[in-house]
């Protein structure tokens, strides 16, 4: 397990370095003078120079990168241009709703996917099976912001169950505000889970130990729930990690549909205002989050399934 953990950690290092390089180069790729953009056209040249010196832009580029790396490790990304507060503070204040939304939508996606894939795997080739697959295809063709609006029309206008938008305080208020966004994401992502779980269930149901439990006279229900479900749900662990990147992309959009004050809303404001220190901080933090969670799922997978860590270290 130690060797497996070490090899996974080592593999993450180039990715993290690439990520930091990308965040670093972002400021340098902006045409024109960052100080000029930040301070506006009327700023004096000396003020612009002083601003650039504050960003260490007058130093050699390699030294700049090292400085950036040192600051990024402590999550210091300078001051946001629009918010007039440190980027780290702004990100911390907006991280909560996003994290809650992601967890909530994962739970909804799994709550839809697990029972449905059990039904679908039991009745392979039936009308339900094909129907679920068809719905899956439709969900791939569905823009998340539009589905969000449809859910608003259905569940907060026609039947006033949930708020149209905005973010209430208190845990129950937060959950109520996050239900429609989480449902949007959950509906869009459950087909991916269903497809994977269905495939692995079918594979496990064909295996010899399932045959053996059937031969021992166990009921089909018991075979399915007690013997087949657990080994089949292993690929889901990896999938949850892999989906996170695209889930985060969709979260950025969905947060803005429902007015959730999370990192996605912050990112859109930052990009609209060309608030590059804030964009830089968000790029690095969001990328870091995805890489770390993928690493965690990899390790978790190694924990759950010994075959994986044996194969990886061989």
């Amino acid at each position, binding site marked *: 397990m130690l060797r497996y953990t070490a090899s996974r950690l080592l593999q993450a290092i180039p990715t993290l370095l690439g990520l930091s390089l990308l965040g670093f180069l972002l400021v340098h790729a902006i045409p024109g003078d960052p100080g000029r953009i930040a301070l506006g056209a009327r700023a004096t040249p000396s003020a612009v120079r002083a601003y650039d010196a504050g960003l260490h832009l007058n130093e050699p580029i390699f030294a700049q990168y090292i400085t950036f790396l040192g600051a990024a490790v402590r999550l210091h990304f300078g001051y946001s241009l629009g918010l007039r507060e440190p980027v780290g503070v702004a990100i911390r204040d907006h991280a909560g709703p996003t994290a809650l939304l992601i967890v909530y939508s994962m739970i909804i996606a799994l709550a839809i996917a697990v029972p449905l894939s059990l039904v679908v795997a039991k009745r392979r080739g039936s009308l339900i099976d094909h129907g679920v697959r068809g719905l899956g295809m439709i969900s791939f063709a569905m*823009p998340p912001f539009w589905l969000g609006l449809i859910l608003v029309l259905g569940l907060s206008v026609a039947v006033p169950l949930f708020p149209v938008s905005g973010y209430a305080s208190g845990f129950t208020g937060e959950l109520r505000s996050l239900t429609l966004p989480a449902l949007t994401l959950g509906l869009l992502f459950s087909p991916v889970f269903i497809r994977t779980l269905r495939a692995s269930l079918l594979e496990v149901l064909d295996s010899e130990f399932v045959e053996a439990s059937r031969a021992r006279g166990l009921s089909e229900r018991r075979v399915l729930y007690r013997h087949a479900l657990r080994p089949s749900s292993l690929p889901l662990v990896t999938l949850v990690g892999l989906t996170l990147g695209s889930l985060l992309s969709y979260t950025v959009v969905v947060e803005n549909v429902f007015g959730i004050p999370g990192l996605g809303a912050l990112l859109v404001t930052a990009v609209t205002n060309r608030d590059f220190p804030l964009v830089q901080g968000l790029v690095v933090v*969001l990328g870091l989050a995805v890489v770390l969670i993928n690493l965690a799922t990899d390790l978790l997978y190694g924990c759950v399934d010994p075959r994986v860590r044996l194969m990886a270290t061989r």
Partner: protein
Amino acid sequence: MTSQTVALPDPRQALVNRLAGGRRQRVSAPRLGAGILAVVIVASLTVRVCGIVTPGAVDLTHTLEPPSIHHLFGTDDLGRDVFGRTIYAATLDLWLGVSTTVGAMALGLVIGALVGYRGGVLDSCVMRLMDIILAFPFIVFVMAFITIYGPGLTGIYIGFIITGIPVFARLARAAMLGVREQEFILAAETLGFSRGRIIWRHALPHLLSATVVYALANIVLNIIYVAALSYLGLGVQPPTPEWGATIAEGQQYLLTAWWISTLPGLFFVVVCIAIYLAGEGLADPLSRRTLGQ
């Protein structure tokens, strides 16, 4: 596979097959998709070229009118015909999806073919770089480019093409590893053809079929994300008609004039499903032509 439909004895089974898009149906579902797509493209081009729809035509005497025979999707707050704008926008949205995909596909194919053929250190370095891009939340990456170039299409083109490359490069490389071992490549090498000629003329056609199916899915993905960015105000700028921007404009009237956002969105979903269905038709004959099958 024949295109004739065989008369089925059991009507329930026929229904299952029809809904399923199963074996018997493979032939007509892609045709349906391609048909819808063709109608939309022709209509959109006609509307543009012949000037039937003026997307900016404001009519303040007919604002926020519900769908009727004159205005199929109703009118918006400025009295503009929502259906006309939706049709008009189809070429732009499809073009953005297709062009970004084709750009990424071309670059990804070349990169994947090259490193797959040569192997070695270059191969592992380039594929590592691809992994880094792939590890990134896609929309954040694109938005970084929009920050650099400002809201609009430049950042979208560059961001979508760069983020699209890794998957194509991976697919092309994987296919190249198989093709490289084939006898006709050995024959070409024996004949003393240059590396460029072998990759370009002999191997690339086989790699193409390995990536085309993913390309269609990628087109849909890119259309959705370009629309999402326009919805957020970072892509195509109003008053240019675009699906995402139209849906965003209608959102503030969701409670009083539901049609402005919902009907263009429905149109959008139908077009995307049509692309998927058309793609299924391509997947079948191509996969049979792919080497090693």
